[in-house]
């Protein structure tokens, strides 16, 4: 009866560190021995592994709105994910679509991000909901751009519409617009 042996179950933090972080060899041995002897912790680790599988599936199909990094988008491409990318400068627009072959569409929004403490993205989507504000998105200030991946399924449902995204820097409760980006979307016609 293995579960009874689990008097000190591993924490989620320990399981995550074991699975993702590559802990030191000694620590890894200890964690591994515990997981191997403990049904309860092994099941919790299995949940984490299952979560990772589902996340991969969602990412690869553009199944969630997300703010990503350039390196991550490159890894997706290397994994065979078909990424359509639109690079837009502040104040500019681009004609865009999503084809049946695309897994993911990424809007690459250029902006001066040096010194920005907090960054929000406002998506003005006349087709569906009203403006949606993505608050406090992660970004690399030195990168001068962020990558926004909209929900692929929503893009596929769109007709001919003009969408806008807005980058807003929030500093000490003051807001400063960094750029507006226009996406002239048309449905894909073969």
């Amino acid at each position, binding site marked *: 009866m293995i579960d009874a042996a689990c008097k000190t179950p591993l924490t989620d933090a320990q399981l995550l*560190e074991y699975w993702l972080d590559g802990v030191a060899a000694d620590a890894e041995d200890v964690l591994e021995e515990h997981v191997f002897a403990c049904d309860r912790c092994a099941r919790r680790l299995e949940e984490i*592994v299952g979560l990772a599988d*589902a*996340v991969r599936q969602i990412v690869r199909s553009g199944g969630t709105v997300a703010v990503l990094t350039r390196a*991550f988008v490159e890894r997706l491409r290397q994994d065979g994910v078909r990424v359509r990318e639109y690079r837009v400068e502040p104040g500019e627009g681009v004609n865009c679509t999503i084809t049946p072959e695309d897994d993911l569409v990424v809007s690459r929004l250029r902006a001066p991000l040096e010194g920005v403490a907090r960054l929000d993205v406002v998506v003005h989507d006349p087709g569906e909901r009203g403006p949606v504000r993505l608050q406090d998105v992660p970004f690399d200030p030195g990168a001068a751009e962020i990558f926004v991946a909209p929900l692929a399924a929503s893009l596929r449902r769109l007709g001919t519409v003009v969408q806008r995204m807005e980058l807003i820097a929030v500093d000490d409760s003051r807001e400063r617009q960094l750029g507006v980006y226009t996406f002239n979307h048309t449905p894909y016609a073969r």
Partner: protein
Amino acid sequence: MACEGSVTSAAVVTLPGKRGISYAPEVASPSPQLAALGSLDDAVLVRRIIAAAPAVDGQAEAELCRRFGPRVRLYGLKHLRDPAAAADLVQDVLMLTLQRLRAGRVREPERIVSFMLGTCRQMVIDLRRGQNRRQRLLETFAGDVPISEFAPAPPLDAERLRPCLERLTERERTVVLMSFYDGRSAAEVARELQLSTANVRVIRHRSLRRLRGCLDGGDSTEDSS
């Protein structure tokens, strides 16, 4: 090799052929006999298998496989990062363990966990050295152990997870995606997002709690860290 007592009607791996290893990651409704076996201490279970030799205690062997199969698989996924290789490892480790038990070559049944973990480690080392231990095993027991078709544990439904991901904050969602998509460490994610490693660990941990809460039908917005 007969670790073939089916303990559930679903998610059972049964090796094709006259003999094989069955492994059920999730036990839906075990028979009363297997439920009783499930309550046995590891060492008691192992002694039953040893005592039965040269006959085969199929139910005890099935319970051993059910109990340790998922853990061997986790070990394989962690160190080989390949589901197919992990599935092969499960079969090889279970096969070798049962072979040793039946031959009376496991002298300390109470140390079965160490024995099996050590076997996992050695087999993974062999794989990394390019030594095909699997091939040697299959040659040794040719005809006795067919190649396994391995069914992983029932997956988490991505459609169930999706709304839960959407309820995370942007920062949490990005960290979750970047961490789990291809197994990035907190340090790697931190470097890409220009955050501290400690901060990524906190976000990752909090996100996991919130996702669990949401998947369990609770309030995903609760911060239970």
